[in-house]
């Protein structure tokens, strides 16, 4: 039974387990080196695979000669796209979305390669060293084609075609208008324009991709081990493309060493390994090396946005227009409009802007395919908040004032945005006020003024974030995107009174074994140490949509909470029978003990969950009439179309004008993620997301040269933030519960990325304001900052 969203009464203090800082249950194995990540799993007699990859951005495959590789001692087989096309079907991405071209890809390319790192053949050998040696002996003859290395060029008539089946590289184009922007722009006091260029980045989980496939010929059954955020949807895709029934495939996700959105799609390498295991009737495994991960796993974030705001002279925004162009890379692992659309959808942010138009173009290029990366819509907050700052700059107004006069307040909620999104139970205005007060905004401006006199340039950046967290089925239906937003969970009280539970989500560091246990413990009325959460095995876990888009709390823990509540109902009915009472309403369970309400007090009875479980399983004759033995609840739940959290980031920087280097000062985040299950885990997520965002703004960049060669194939080239580049973050929590979700949960973990990008860019612009220059692209490298100042000085000369 699927339960629709329902109104929850605002709770908060009456939780006994939700809201507690409980150290994580999963830590022991991770701290002692006994966790099992993919490559730690022993797969007896497994062969090892290595992929041969294209050195060209765009080339026709003329021939592939595998003879030398095949004769290398220890090599078992070498396969190419041709063999795989016989064993597997192509991936077709063709959602019924207007303006979106369908795309299709074979398991490995057959006719041509489309980016530097595209896999063309797979060598299978007795160990990884030999497989890598032999991969170098595979001779591929290419005819090099002109490459599309820039999305703006890609849209031109004369550009080379990335996908020969499409008439253009403009794979997706949508135009929308809400309200009446044209008329408003024609009459506006001012039109403020701003541009925002975000560079290409990649996820870099510390554990690269990998998988292992074991084919059982007798049972005609595949066991597929892979670190995946979405075990069940992956199973459906994998079975489908192998021509197997879902009864013939089990996906098991071991511990995952970080994912960040990179471990959602069924990758071509994974499908190849599964097909090989079935074909060879021998186990096959693959572990990606770091260079492959940087070149060929998944990239993200390469977006260009231009905004135009029609504003009154006192800074009120009357209408907004946005042009969004996104570089999608060479293949479609997700609907091409999927990420760019959410950027457009969220762009009005926390502001009262009902007249809004956007134009979203998504372009194919000869680069690694794009996919969702922790906050797929990450650029949006920078765009909204950068536009607010641009308005303040042009009209010479205070940036906080511009935000305040345009922002939604409590009395405006619930609020239907221009893009038909429903905001409720969010607190952008309150968190902004709190942030300003806590930071000491007025005092900062004085300090900034004084520092400027000494030739030091401080800046304060503000970024207000409205974060879409949990996508319900209605959202998917509205967007035309395949998939749904519901989730499933089961809760079982075992005969000894301990509790096993599962859900369809799969963790990659979020601590679900702790937080879902807390939600179950709360819902059932037991101690979290008596609850054990089992995730990642599709035969064990119920079919759910997995982990993506910050849905772990509302969808995952929320569904488990609802299942636990149902289990509690049954437990209390049994308790009432055993106590000789008619009405279970007068009973409750806490910490596994049954309490009875006598007059106005809760009095503990002798009865515990152990007694009740024993009765349910071993003495069912004692159960209330008509009740089924056992205590096993299976539940599905479909969250609201969208759940929102919000936050404000305030970041202080100092820019060294001589060197262009940016140093971080104070960094304050005021966030409202509703009722939180475990504050310590939430803080960890905010820290991680924010520093990941800062890494992107300051350091990380995937660089392709003009021929489409990826120049950032090692961690010496693709720079991640280290402990020295990560500022210390101060957090203030608001906990405004969502009234529709289970336990008032909202979800979070992507907003930190969004806030960091906006706050840091705005801070640097504030610091640079005396020079009349502003950053319009990232990363904010010293070289870029210096070039802005140098060019301005040259102009002034």
């Amino acid at each position, binding site marked *: 039974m699927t339960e629709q969203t329902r109104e929850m009464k605002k709770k908060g203090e009456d939780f006994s387990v939700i809201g507690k800082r409980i*150290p*994580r249950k*999963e*830590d*022991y*194995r*991770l*701290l*002692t*080196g*006994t*966790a*099992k*990540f993919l*490559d*730690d799993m022993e797969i007896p007699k497994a062969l090892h695979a290595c992929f041969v990859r294209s050195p060209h951005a765009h080339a026709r495959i003329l021939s592939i000669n595998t003879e030398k590789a095949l004769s290398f001692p220890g090599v078992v087989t070498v396969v190419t796209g041709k063999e795989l096309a016989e064993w597997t079907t192509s991936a077709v991405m063709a959602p019924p979305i207007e303006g979106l071209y369908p795309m299709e890809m074979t398991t490995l390319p057959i006719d041509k390669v489309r980016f530097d790192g595209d896999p063309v053949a797979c060598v299978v050998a007795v160990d990884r*060293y030999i497989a890598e040696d032999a991969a170098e002996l595979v001779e591929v003859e290419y005819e090099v084609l002109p490459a599309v290395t820039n999305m703006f060029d890609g849209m031109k008539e004369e550009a080379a075609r990335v996908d020969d089946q499409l008439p253009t590289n403009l794979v997706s184009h949508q135009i929308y208008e809400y309200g009446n922007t044209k008329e408003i722009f024609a009459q506006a006091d001012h039109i403020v324009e701003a541009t925002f260029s975000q560079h290409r980045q990649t996820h*870099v*989980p*510390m*554990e*690269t991709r990998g998988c292992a496939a074991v084919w059982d010929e007798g049972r005609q059954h595949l066991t597929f081990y892979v670190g995946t955020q979405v075990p069940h949807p992956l199973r459906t895709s994998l079975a489908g493309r192998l021509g197997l029934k879902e009864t013939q495939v089990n996906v098991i996700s071991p*511990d*995952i*060493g*970080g994912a*960040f959105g990179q471990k959602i799609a069924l990758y071509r390498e994974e499908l190849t390994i599964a097909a090989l295991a079935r074909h060879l009737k021998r186990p096959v495994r693959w572990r990606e*090396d*770091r260079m492959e991960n940087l070149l060929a796993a998944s990239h993200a974030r390469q977006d260009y946005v231009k905004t135009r705001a029609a504003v009154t002279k006192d800074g009120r925004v009357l209408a907004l227009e946005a042009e969004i162009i996104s570089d999608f890379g060479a293949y479609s692992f997700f609907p091409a409009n999927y990420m760019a659309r959410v950027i457009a959808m969220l762009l009005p942010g926390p502001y009262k802007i009902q007249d809004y138009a956007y134009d979203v173009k998504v372009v194919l290029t000869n680069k690694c395919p794009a996919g969702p990366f922790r906050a797929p819509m990450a650029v949006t907050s920078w765009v909204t908040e950068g536009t607010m700052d641009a308005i303040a700059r042009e009209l010479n107004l205070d940036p906080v004032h511009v935000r305040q006069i345009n922002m939604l307040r409590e009395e405006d909620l619930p609020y239907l945005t221009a893009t038909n999104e429903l905001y409720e139970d969010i607190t952008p205005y309150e968190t902004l006020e709190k942030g300003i007060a806590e930071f000491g905004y007025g005092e900062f401006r004085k300090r900034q003024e004084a520092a400027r006199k000494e030739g030091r340039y401080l800046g304060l950046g503000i970024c207000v974030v409205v974060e879409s967290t949990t996508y319900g089925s209605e959202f998917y239906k509205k967007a035309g995107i395949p998939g749904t937003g519901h989730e499933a969970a089961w809760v079982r009280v075992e005969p000894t009174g301990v509790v096993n539970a599962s859900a369809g989500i799969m963790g*990659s*560091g*979020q*601590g679900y074994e702790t937080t879902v246990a807390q939600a179950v413990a709360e819902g059932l009325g037991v101690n979290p140490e008596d609850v054990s959460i089992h995730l990642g095995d599709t035969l064990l876990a119920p079919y759910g949509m997995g982990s993506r888009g910050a849905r772990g709390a509302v969808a995952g823990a929320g569904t488990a909470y609802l299942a636990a509540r149902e289990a509690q109902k049954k437990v209390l009915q049994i308790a009432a029978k055993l106590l000789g009472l008619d009405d279970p309403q007068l009973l409750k369970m806490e910490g596994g003990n049954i309490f009875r309400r006598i007059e106005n007090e809760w009095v503990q009875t002798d009865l515990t969950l152990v007694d009740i479980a024993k009765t349910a399983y071993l003495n069912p004759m004692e159960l209330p009439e008509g009740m089924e033995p056992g205590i096993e609840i299976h539940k599905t739940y479909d969250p609201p179309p969208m759940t929102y959290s919000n936050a404000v980031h305030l970041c202080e920087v100092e820019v060294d004008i001589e060197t262009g280097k940016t140093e971080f000062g104070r960094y304050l985040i005021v966030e409202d993620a509703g009722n939180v299950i475990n504050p*310590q*885990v939430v*803080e*960890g997520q905010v*820290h*991680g*997301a*924010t*520093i*990941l965002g800062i890494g992107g703004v300051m350091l990380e960049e995937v660089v392709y040269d003009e021929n489409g060669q990826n120049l950032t194939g*090692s*961690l*010496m080239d693709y720079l*991640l933030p*280290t*402990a*020295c580049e*990560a500022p*210390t*973050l101060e957090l203030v929590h608001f906990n405004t519960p969502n009234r529709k979700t289970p336990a008032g949960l909202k979800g979070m973990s992507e907003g930190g990325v969004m806030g960091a990008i906006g706050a840091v860019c705005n801070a640097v612009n504030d610091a640079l304001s005396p020079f009349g220059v502003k950053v319009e692209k990232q990363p904010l490298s010293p070289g870029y900052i210096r070039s802005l100042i140098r060019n301005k000085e040259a102009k002034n000369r």
Partner: protein
Amino acid sequence: MDKVGVQLKVNGETYHVFVEPRKLLSDVLREDVGLTGTHVGCEHGVCGACTVLVNGKPMRSCLLFAVQMEGEEITTIEAIAQDGKYSALQKAFHEEHGLQCGYCTPGIILTFESYLKSNPAPTEEEIRDVLSGNLCRCTGYQNIVKAIQKAINAKGDLNGEEDRQ
């Protein structure tokens, strides 16, 4: 490539393995010795996930060949907890939520088990400087620093670990 016999001393025990001379210490520890707590993150010496202690000093096991290690004392993450009990540092990581996915964690724990022995009272800046040799994509480092500081303040416990070999 021909395999050669190598005698390794890992966590106080002697292992005889038969491996190619080109086989990395990280791979030998994981595949031949069977200790998979040493994680491989980049195989080019940048990320620090594969850090082990060689004669008490942190080294990247992906930049060493197992054949180089005869006669050296290697310590891996598996030797840090004793009889199921965390070291002070591990305990602090657990309490302060100093890990998320946990993939980089063994390398960080080993780096600081070693560093804090010779530098029992580092400043935050010094901690961050040493920590910068280990990449973590999940935590933003803040709780890792907090955990290390907590372990430093829980004095006395760290030195107890010297008896483990």
